[in-house]
């Protein structure tokens, strides 16, 4: 093989060289901005720590071992944290977007399918409310026999259900439909995350209140400042809707709806109403702002707008290598990414390294769960030449992730939501990876 060995011994000279270098990628292929670099520098420069650093701080693209240098082991401290922190060397973080109304998941640093709760994307329309669960109630009323109200503790008494599900803002990748200005996969696609959600099936609660004949829609309302509200067909509510109170094994994060939220598997993020306080059963859609003036998809081809487009269709994106990374040299790389569909389980993911001229089948990491992120992998030997990396997902309905050209031709440039076109990353001979518009 003509690629360098992965993993090699590090010397103090190499550490000094690494510190003096002005390369943008001191932390290897995963640049995390100035913060990560600064903290590592400070650590390395700390008196007497240089030798220890050789044993535990990755300096090159791939990890090294100490090769006999450094201490035998690293003495620890007695655990004193009631609620754990990540290692002090880890700096990956969400990225707040314009106006502070959302923050983006660092997909480029993710592995597996679960998004840590602290890195789950957020989007809110009037800030994150601080809600005392002892004061919070969910009221279910309208076309029901018996209007009821439930506290979080009440909900926890009911039979529970847990599902690993993606939640994707329907505005995710919107900017990618028009430009390649987003440097990283986080900036371009970071409004999607996967968590295990636990709560009560809404069908259980609706059986309790007794839904009257003629009921067809349910207004779901949050208790945030925007009092965000959406109309949901009762069929969806009875099918697989969950009133969730937990995320990844603990209480839902405040920015994700604490103490309870609606989870509608596979449907656009906005309708998964957070800080849920009211469900009103009715016979018609309520036509709230979020389903008329927003979250409708204007086709500039016709001037007409698609409404009630709830399902997030099949989509995939390569997260490694991805924008703003730099490959240290030719050789073996495992291309990796995420695929998901709100309609059906992912059937297959194909990967191209030549901008869509030829495609190969990626392997899918088990378990392949319906309506959850699926991790795909594709072994690649980079020959050092220019390459354009793309992925496309197909779900079990046969739906294939479309090209940007297809979407533009059919929908124009209007839809702010539901853009799921194929993403292209260009690799140059110097190893740099950047966002490019699909040819």
């Amino acid at each position, binding site marked *: 093989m003509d690629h360098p060995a992965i993993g090699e011994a590090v010397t103090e000279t190499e550490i000094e060289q690494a510190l003096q270098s002005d390369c943008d990628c001191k932390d290897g292929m995963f640049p995390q901005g100035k913060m990560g670099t600064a903290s590592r520098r400070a650590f390395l420069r700390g008196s007497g720590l240089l030798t220890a650093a050789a044993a535990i701080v990755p300096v090159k693209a791939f990890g090294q071992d100490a090769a006999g240098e450094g201490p035998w082991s690293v003495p620890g401290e007695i655990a004193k944290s009631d609620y754990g922190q990540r290692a002090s060397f880890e700096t990956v973080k969400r990225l707040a977007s314009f106006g502070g109304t959302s923050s983006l998941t660092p997909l480029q640093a993710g592995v597996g399918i679960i998004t840590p709760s602290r890195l789950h994307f957020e989007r809110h329309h009037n800030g994150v409310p601080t809600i005392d669960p002892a004061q919070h109630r969910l009221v279910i009323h309208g076309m029901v026999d018996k209007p009821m109200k439930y506290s979080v503790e009440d909900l926890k*008494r009911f039979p529970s259900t847990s599902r690993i599900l993606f939640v994707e803002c329907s505005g995710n990748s919107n900017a990618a439909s028009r430009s390649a200005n987003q440097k990283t996969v986080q900036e371009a696609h970071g409004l999607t995350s996967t968590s295990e959600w636990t709560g009560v099936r809404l069908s259980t609660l609706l*059986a*309790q209140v*007794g839904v009257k004949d003629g009921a067809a829609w349910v207004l779901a309302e949050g208790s945030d400042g925007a009092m965000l509200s959406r109309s949901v067909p009762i069929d969806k509510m009875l099918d697989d809707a969950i009133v969730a109170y937990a995320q990844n094994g603990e209480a839902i994060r405040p920015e994700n709806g604490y103490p309870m939220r609606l989870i509608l598997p596979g449907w656009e993020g906005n309708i998964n109403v957070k800080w849920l306080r009211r469900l009103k059963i009715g016979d018609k859609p309520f036509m709230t702002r979020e389903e008329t*003036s927003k979250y409708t998809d*204007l086709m*500039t081809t016709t001037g007409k707008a698609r409404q009630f487009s709830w399902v997030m269709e099949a989509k995939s994106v390569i997260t490694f290598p991805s924008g703003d990374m730099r490959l240290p040299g030719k050789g073996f790389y495992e291309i990796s990414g995420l695929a998901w569909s709100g309609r059906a389980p992912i059937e297959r993911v194909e990967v191209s390294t030549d901008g869509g001229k030829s495609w190969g089948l990626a392997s899918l990491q088990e378990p392949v769960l319906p309506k959850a992120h699926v991790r795909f992998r594709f072994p690649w030997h980079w020959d050092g030449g220019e390459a354009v990396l793309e992925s496309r997902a197909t779900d079990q309905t046969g739906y294939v992730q479309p090209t940007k050209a297809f979407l533009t031709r059919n929908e124009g440039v209007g839809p702010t939501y539901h853009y799921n076109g194929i993403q292209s990353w260009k690799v140059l001979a110097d190893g740099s990876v950047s966002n490019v518009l699909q040819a």
Partner: protein
Amino acid sequence: MSFKLKGAFLGAAVLAALPVTVWAQQVGYPGGAAYPFGSPASEADIRAWDKDVRPDGAGLPAGSGTYKQGEQIYGEQCASCHGLKLEGIRDPNLPQGGAPALVGGRGTLNTTHFKQTVESYWPYATTLFDYITRAMPYTAPGSLKPDEVYALVAYILAEGHVIKPTEVMDAKSLPKVRMPNRDGFYIDNRPYPVKRYD
């Protein structure tokens, strides 16, 4: 049949009955016996939050408002984010990075410089009442009284040339307002009827 075999059959019968029992416990409640959790929602509980308004006017409260009243309230409560001429402001120092334009944009929806406003895009005037009531002004949502909301709706609709400045908005007149883009929407028709996209 030996005694031993009879016992085995009996055991199988008990086992077979078990899942049925469990099933009955989990889904055996619709309309009948209830899980004894939660408490009945009182009239007061519901009234406190039941403020939504539908296109047919269901939910609209008593009260009324005029363009003149709305003009003054808009200047005090709305203009700092939406602009003196309802033209919208983009400014990272404002909440949400500013607020969208409320008027203009008619005739642009099938162009690449499309502009979606209350005037050009919103299909129902009642949604304006519902949304202002629940979410505006941004820094003090829920603080506006029904009369004030009717007045703001009258002002915004008149500035957008949807109604005349002389028209009074109330529970009777508002649902009758026909928005310019009322027929501009169609129900989701995805997936597209093609087997493979490009």
